[in-house]
């Protein structure tokens, strides 16, 4: 237990320092764009670098628990865990943050003066997200969750005098708070039942089960249920998904990418950490319920996406379905974690790329994005059109795109866990998915009246989309390196 080492919290520290630096720079110098953009970018890169360092350190030392206080007056369980799991999350979140920043660049430019806050909030949000993955303490998970959520509430409502943006922020805030509260109550009940807030360590939940018989199983079960509700809500699994389409549609297009991607990554990491690592011994109790929610999410997500006319809502509903596929990996327990990582990390890039394209086509501050407005995109901006098509195919789970590997990986682990019915639901909803993803693809390639109206994406947005598409394609064709990596991205 090297309490003194900074590395386990370096990710958060780097991002916080970056955020503070930006605000400082803004205070000291004039609020001009050209300073903090690069600073934020460098910060994200540095954060991802920290993730790599952590990964290497974990590979060497095996990681461990940090920041526990154990003297006579104060006994606090460890607050930070550094393992393959958290290190991988750090790398992914750092890179996703970077890509999201590139994607949001146009938005940053268009909000002018207030862009300082915007960029700082992005950094803080990512810090919060990673905090959810790198702690064994349930309350700290909550704090990370709230840090990220509060930042996102602001980002959603960032466009003043925009009714959609306001509505989006309001809904996100009210419902998000509700979800957070439920999660927290679940934490409290778990604490009440087990007397522990920590997943690892001496006085941990895991140890508790091995030494004590639970006298009040009801409290623990209710606690588990409420924690699940809270996290299901955050990752927008059906039937807790209803906020997502409204929020995504209303929020400024440039900002949605990080919201959608980051929350999925951290949310599933937290789910895996708590339920597989913490309550893994009781997988038989929660897995069937998770499976039902997974099936519901896939069914609801795909069928409702099928009838959407707004691209952002479509992406939101497809996100619900993707939450379902991700939950499918959960029923397999530890075996499913690599599948979860593969899926969520590639999905994060795809969804950021997709929302960046929305931002390119509809403008970074836009709310609504009717699918019709993507007509003829392949002609108006061939590169954007093709890349979006690739991303759509990636999401749909077509072979030779990352989504396919992710799905099959998920199905295999679920099949291994004897959840073949869930796999069947997964494959069939994938077909429904083809219907709406391909609709988008053919819209892109169809001819529009305003064919000549060319769209010139900015350099940064272009970058973001290209990276996203490259990830989609590369990990679709050569997924082996990533598959090897995620096999080690396991929690302690």
């Amino acid at each position, binding site marked *: 237990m090297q309490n003194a080492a900074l590395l386990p919290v370096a990710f958060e520290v780097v991002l916080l320092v970056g955020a503070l630096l930006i605000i400082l720079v803004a205070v000291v110098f004039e609020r001009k764009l050209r300073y903090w953009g690069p600073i934020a970018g460098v910060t994200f890169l540095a954060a991802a670098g920290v993730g790599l360092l952590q990964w290497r350190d974990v590979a060497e030392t095996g990681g461990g628990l940090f920041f526990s206080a154990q003297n006579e007056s104060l006994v606090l369980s460890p607050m930070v865990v550094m393992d393959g799991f958290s290190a991988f999350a750090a790398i992914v979140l750092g890179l996703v943050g970077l890509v999201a920043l590139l994607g949001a660049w146009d938005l940053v430019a268009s909000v002018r003066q207030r862009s300082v806050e915007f960029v700082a909030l992005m950094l803080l949000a990512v810090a919060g997200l990673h905090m959810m993955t790198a702690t064994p303490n349930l309350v700290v998970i909550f704090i990370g969750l709230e840090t990220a959520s509060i930042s996102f509430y602001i980002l959603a409502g960032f466009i003043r005098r925009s009714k959609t943006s306001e509505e989006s922020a309001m809904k996100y805030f*009210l419902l998000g708070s509700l979800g957070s509260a*439920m999660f927290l109550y679940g934490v409290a009940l778990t604490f009440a039942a087990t007397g522990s807030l920590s997943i690892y360590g001496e006085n941990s939940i895991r140890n508790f089960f091995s030494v004590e018989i639970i006298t009040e199983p009801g409290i623990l079960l209710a606690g588990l249920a409420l924690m699940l*509700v809270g996290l299901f809500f955050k990752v927008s699994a059906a039937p*807790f998904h*209803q906020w997502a389409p409204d929020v995504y549609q209303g929020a400024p297009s440039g900002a949605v990418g990080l919201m959608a991607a980051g929350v999925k990554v951290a949310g599933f990491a937290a789910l895996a950490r708590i339920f597989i690592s913490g309550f893994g011994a009781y997988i038989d*109790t929660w897995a069937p319920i998770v499976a039902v929610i997974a099936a519901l999410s896939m069914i609801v997500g*795909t069928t409702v996406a099928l009838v959407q006319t707004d691209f952002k809502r479509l992406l939101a509903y497809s996100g619900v379905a993707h939450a379902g596929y991700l939950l499918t990996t959960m029923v397999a327990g530890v075996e499913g974690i690599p599948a979860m990582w593969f899926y969520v990390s590639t999905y994060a890039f795809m969804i950021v790329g997709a929302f960046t394209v929305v931002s390119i086509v509809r403008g970074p501050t836009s709310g609504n994005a009717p699918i019709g407005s993507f007509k003829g995109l392949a002609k108006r901006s061939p590169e954007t059109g093709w890349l979006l098509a690739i991303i759509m195919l990636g999401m749909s789970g077509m072979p030779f795109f990352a989504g396919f590997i992710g799905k099959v990986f998920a199905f295999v682990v679920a099949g291994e866990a004897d959840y073949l019915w869930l796999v069947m639901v997964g494959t069939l909803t994938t077909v429904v998915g083809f219907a709406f993803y391909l609709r988008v693809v053919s819209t892109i390639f169809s001819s529009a009246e305003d064919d000549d109206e060319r769209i010139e994406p900015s350099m940064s947005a272009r970058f973001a989309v290209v990276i996203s598409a490259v990830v989609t394609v590369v990990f679709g064709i050569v997924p082996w390196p990533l598959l090897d990596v995620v096999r080690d991205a396991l929690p302690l």
Partner: protein
Amino acid sequence: MIDVLWLVIALPLVGSTINLFFGKRIGQPLAGWVAFGFVALAWLVALPATFSLIDGSIPVETSYLFTWIPVVGADVALLWDPLSALMTMIVTGIGSLIHLYSIGYMRGDERYPRFFSFMNLFIASMMILVLSANYAMMFIGWELVGLSSYLLISFWFTKPAAAAAGKKAFIVNRIGDWGFLVALMIIFASFGTFDFQTIFASAPVVITVGTATAITLLLFVGAAGKSAQIPLYVWLPDAMEGPTPVSALIHAATMVTAGVFMIARSAVLFEMAPTTGAIVAVVGTLTALVAALIAVSQTDIKKVLAYSTISQLGYMVLAMGVGAYTAGIFHLTTHAFFKALLFLGAGSVIHAMAGDQDMRTMGGLRKKMPITFITMGAGWLALSGVFPFSGFWSKDEILAATFAKGGWYIGLWVIGLLVALLTAFYMTRLFVMTFLGKPRWEDGVHPHESPATMTIPLIILGLFTVSFGLVNTPALVAFEHFLEGSFQYVHHVQGLSMGAIIGLATIALIVAIAGIVWGWLKYHRSELPAEDGKFWRRSRDAFGVDEFYGRTIVEPGKKASEWAADVFDVKVLDGIAHGIGSGTRGFGDVLARLQTGQVRAYAGGVAIAGVLLIIVFLAVGGGF
């Protein structure tokens, strides 16, 4: 000697190819001469082999060429026996003559080379059929002659009737082919091979009478298609839409006899199945009768000959049914000569009449075209069965064989005689209406004798028509003797005494002469007799068989297809698919409607689902 037999197939094929690709450049009439040359060459190649077979210097043998479909043991191999030798001679011999004839007849046609290409193709196909050493290869030829027939019938495809006739011929033949095909399946399942020699040698041991009956009945379905027997004869009259040399070669002399040939080839199997024999005999007799009844009223010269062909094929089939294979094949041979002759003569007449085929506008052509008149006269007498023309000998043998079977076959013999009477009658009618009496042709038509390329074949065929019957008289059974090599596995039935034969022949002759006299009296007068009355009208409509088929088979079939296409496929099958699709969309719509946009509703959803989740957890988590 039989090593070169493949040339008999290859030569016409080469001719066909040459004409197909270079015909236009070769030009008229050279293209025709090329085609003729290849067929004649084929005949020449086969000639020495035939003689060797006749004088017994070579045995019956099979010449293996190459393996066709290994898994079903189907080879391309040629069987050279008297039957195939005879057919080869007929096909290449008469084929050469008809090619020669066509050089003049088709002169001026835009697609002259194409015609000869198709004709050569037919000869090649027919040779495949005839020379095949197994059923599989026979089936190739069987279908290929169907193809050539299709191509040639609808040669003048811009005439809708010609196009339709070609299609009809092919499709009706295909119905027969279905039978043949199924027979092949049973043969393979029973014998494991298609090879004639093997099958015939082992049939009595390997298959039961039931199997033999099934095989032979199905083979007969095939034969009925090709040889235009009831109920599949309807294509042959329509086939007259083709150029007349085609009618002569394919639809009179050669292709239509393929069915008979096939039965004769399969004689061993038919011998094993007396039931089939009876059915074949009855079908043959009825076909002969029905066709003759239709032939008496036709006014189109080619239609008369067409129905006459059907009728004569009925005789041959009858012969097959009663087991008189040699007699049937003999009649096939003589018929090939005189029917080819009659068709070519008719072609000559049509040529002279500038395309008119209606006998009511002919008459008195005797003087204008004497060669045609004389040669056709020979054909007329031969077909009518007048002594000593060839038809007399061959037809008589069939009738005698039928009579010899005794029992209810006597009834068939009586019908056979009736058909003989009708045959003599309608042939006389044809001959008289065409050549005798006063000219009835319209102004501007100037009948003339045809050129030498057309008359020489007529003369040659005429000679054969007159004399060929003599090769197989009761006294001189050379023909039968020759064919014995092909029927070595067939048990011969006891023949009739010479006296009975002569007696039966006399009866037949009397009937034939009666028919001629009747016809002569009725038609050899200045005014054509009115041919009305119910019988004549029905007969002229061919008893409405085509319409009947249309009503009972074609239309309902089309209706069923339309129902399947427009209702079942679109409404039911696609309906289910669309139903699933719109069901999914509907489900999505309903769920989307739940998405009211109301924050409180969403919160309610979360709360309710949360409570449910807690309840479920408490319910399933008892085992904690």
